[in-house]
């Protein structure tokens, strides 16, 4: 690369413009936030199993978070729930997942030297980094961090008198999310431009690996929806600080009559969920893209129905913009509107079903090689089935009446969005670790990590459906105030047991990850015998990716076990033989 400049420590590891390094920065920050978010969940799970009792885990908290008896206090319980949601949704599964794999895979898989703009890409990470610092700093302010739920519905989030977390904590939350949105927009625009303009010769859209398709669609979703969140947050800032009434009307809080009239909290919900629902797919689609790739490579078979897979992604993305109202069936909006949203929501089940069947068909008569990545990919499909199906209950407005905001919802979205996406992320890390660090992650530790996670995760989230069907609302500090929930304490203890065990299992992954960076066995150039372009780059990572000319693509990415070929994989750069049809 002609403009290749000399790198020193700072330009190589800190203010790097190399997409591979930026990807790692996103990954490490995402992992750090995942640990923080997971510890938070461990702490509130302990509270839910033993309401009011003290725990050794509380040592991790600032002392102002505890009540006089040494137990967690209710405001701070809500703060933990809020921060757990914010961190996992935005920091881990949006930035951690898309940021890592879009940055890492897009240039490598389309045959580009780097992102369209390395500088914007660097800015994207540093906005994200500052957002992280601001968010974490809110944990240490006196009144505590934002605690009105990750959906920050006003008036609760607008009025510090309503809950202490809506003071400085909420201000920091809004600043942080603004920086976050700026970062993710810079990244997203870059991904789109790169995919559309920098594909190497021969890399037509029909030959793009599904990972890149998924990342492209994800980036488009993000670019279209995140600005709406920003404006939604901006209006909230106006209401909080400048006395406007976009979301506020007819309020008396702590005996004080507020002057605000004419605003509507429902407006906020519409704006929020216009981002909020596409956001679910911003989280899920990259994982499904990764899984398509990993399943195909390790089944040694082409992904079944490539075109249908792309079509399903596009359809899901399109529908995701016209279903946001299913989060709002119970707000009192016009029931007719509810009908429309029920209709569009349930339609999503069709492309989702197509995806599941295509995954099953890809496994069928495969020659499955169980790398840790493959285990997690199959885990994703399992979670996508289990969690996706309960969406048919929640998306149906009539049924939503009684399960809305109960633990049924918590179980549903943790499985379909949380587990699917985090399994997809693990699959991606195990699969591309050799490309990232030039070393292999330990296989056996990977196996233990998968089975431990798989068992514990279902142990945590599946029983939640039953809590929900028993009528238990989410975000309750304790379930002891209602005699009708007394029978549920055993289930809660069981969930907490699995949650803590599952958290400990993640230590195995962290250990394996950091151990392998430094001490793992050296990777070969193409350890999984894959077709895609990233495996044609040398093991030593260089700025510019390929030492000589850019590779030229001659075929699609999924020629595995093609009859007539010598090996069970054919690199994308391999020309078609005489008379060979592409696929």
């Amino acid at each position, binding site marked *: 690369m002609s403009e290749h400049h000399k790198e020193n420590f700072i330009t190589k590891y800190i203010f790097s413009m190399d997409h591979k390094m930026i990807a790692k920065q996103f990954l490490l920050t995402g992992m750090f936030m995942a640990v923080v978010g997971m510890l938070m969940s461990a702490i509130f799970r302990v509270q839910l199993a033993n309401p009011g009792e003290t725990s050794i885990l509380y040592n991790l908290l600032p002392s102002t978070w505890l009540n006089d008896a040494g137990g967690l206090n209710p405001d701070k319980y809500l703060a933990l729930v809020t921060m757990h949601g914010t961190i996992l949704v935005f920091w881990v599964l949006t930035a951690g997942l898309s940021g890592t794999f879009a940055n890492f895979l897009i240039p490598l898989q389309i045959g580009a030297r780097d992102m369209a703009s390395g500088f914007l890409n660097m800015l994207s990470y540093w906005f994200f980094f500052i957002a992280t610092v601001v968010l974490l700093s809110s944990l240490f302010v006196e009144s505590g961090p934002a605690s009105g739920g990750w959906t920050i519905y006003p008036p609760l989030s607008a009025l510090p008198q309503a809950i202490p977390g809506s003071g400085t904590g909420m201000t920091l939350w809004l600043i942080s999310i603004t920086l976050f949105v700026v970062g993710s927009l810079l990244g997203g625009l870059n991904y789109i431009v790169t995919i559309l303009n920098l594909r190497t010769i021969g890399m037509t859209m029909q030959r793009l690996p599904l990972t890149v398709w998924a990342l492209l669609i994800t980036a488009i979703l993000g670019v279209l929806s995140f600005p709406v969140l920003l404006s939604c947050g901006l209006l909230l800032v106006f209401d909080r600080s400048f006395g406007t009434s976009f979301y506020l009307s007819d309020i008396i809080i702590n005996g004080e009559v507020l002057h605000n*009239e004419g605003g509507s909290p429902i407006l906020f919900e519409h704006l929020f969920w216009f981002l909020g629902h596409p956001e679910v797919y911003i989280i899920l689609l990259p994982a499904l893209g990764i899984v398509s790739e990993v399943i195909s490579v390790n089944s040694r078979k082409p992904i079944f129905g490539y075109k249908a897979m792309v079509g399903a992604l596009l359809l899901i993305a399109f529908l995701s913009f016209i279903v946001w109202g299913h989060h709002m069936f119970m707000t009192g909006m016009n029931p007719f509107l509810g009908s429309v949203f029920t209709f569009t929501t349930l339609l999503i089940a069709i492309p989702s079903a197509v995806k599941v069947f295509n995954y099953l068909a890809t496994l069928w008569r495969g020659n499955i090689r169980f790398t840790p990545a493959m285990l997690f990919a199959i885990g994703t499909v399992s979670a996508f089935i289990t969690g996706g199906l309960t969406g048919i209950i929640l998306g149906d407005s009539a049924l939503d009446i009684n399960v809305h905001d109960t633990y049924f919802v918590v179980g549903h979205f943790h499985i379909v969005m949380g587990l699917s996406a985090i399994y997809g992320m693990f699959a991606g890390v195990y699969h591309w670790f050799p490309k990232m660090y030039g070393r292999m992650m330990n296989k056996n530790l990977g196996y233990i990590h998968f089975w431990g996670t798989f068992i514990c995760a279902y142990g945590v989230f599946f029983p939640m459906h039953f809590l929900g069907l028993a009528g238990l609302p989410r975000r309750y500090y304790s379930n002891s105030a209602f005699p009708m929930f007394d029978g549920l304490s055993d289930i809660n203890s069981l969930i907490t047991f699995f949650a803590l065990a599952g958290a400990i299992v993640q230590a195995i992954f962290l250990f394996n990850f950091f151990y392998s960076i430094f001490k793992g066995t050296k990777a070969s150039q193409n350890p999984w015998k894959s077709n895609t372009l990233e495996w044609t780059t040398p093991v030593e990572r260089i700025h510019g990716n390929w030492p000589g000319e850019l590779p030229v693509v001659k075929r699609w990415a999924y020629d595995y076990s093609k009859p007539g070929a010598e090996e069970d994989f054919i690199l994308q750069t391999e020309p078609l033989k005489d008379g060979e049809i592409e696929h």
Partner: protein
Amino acid sequence: MTNILIFIIVISVIATLVQIVRVSELLSEIKNKDVNEVTDKDNNTQGLLFLIVGFGFLIFVVWQMITWDHLLLPPASSVHGTQIDLLMKVSMGLIIVVFFITSPMLFYFAFKYRGKKSNNAYFLSHNNKLEVVWTVIPTIILTVLIIFGLKTWDNAMNVEVTESTKLIEVYAKQYNWTARYSGLDNKLGKANYKLVKGKNTLGVDMLDINSADDKMAREVHLVVNEPVLLKFRSQDVIHSAFLPHFRVQMNCVPGITTQFGFTPNKTTAQMKESEGEDFEYVLLCNKICGASHFNMQMKFIVETQEEYDIWIASQDNLEKKLLTQK
């Protein structure tokens, strides 16, 4: 002290792990094979594990359905709720069937097609017929579900309000509920948040002719088989009125009045017979609203007309409560 101990334990566990992994990798180096290469033996073990753990998970699901069945909400105590329950049974039955078809397929395929070095996978990139089949079948099933769902929704939300529909206001604030009965005229007097003062905790406009006979209470009494229309208001933040036994839920939004109409069809006494002496209908808050969100409740009582008449007569109306009593 415990912190230091935990720290030491964690450090030693990590150190041990490093050594174990190191030793295993060195051993394989001596044997001259790559420790991280997936062998046929690995494929066998992992494939078998999918079969065992996968089906173990399915058994765990069945176990939960059997063991925890008695903890779930009893059948609906309202007319529209019965139809919701039916839709729930149908949808639940359907997703359970699909779950128990696709999940075992996934786990079984993982086991059955576990790899072998000597085997080859079957090259199959697409099959239009199959793909049409598994697009069309879900479409048909969902069409039926959507139509059934929309009918049920319409039936639940668009209740006919007649003369005999009893109007009751449910007023939410951090962290309690108050009910207001519409009195003999079955009309709720106007209210405005600016009028909230002293005993007039709901801001009822006493100059409105419909207000005088309204009655306030901290519990809601309903007459069995009589339709009721609940009107919801909130004083401060969004709350959600959730009455799980009646399959009723509606947000209470400051600045807006929302509503939900239904007809209870089982008295509290009947429910006590079937569900146990401790049974009470209860209204919960189901939208995060602050520190005591988890304890924001009000009792609902469904009774016969006679019982209701006695109770309502014992309550003072607002004219007496706000204007004459000092």
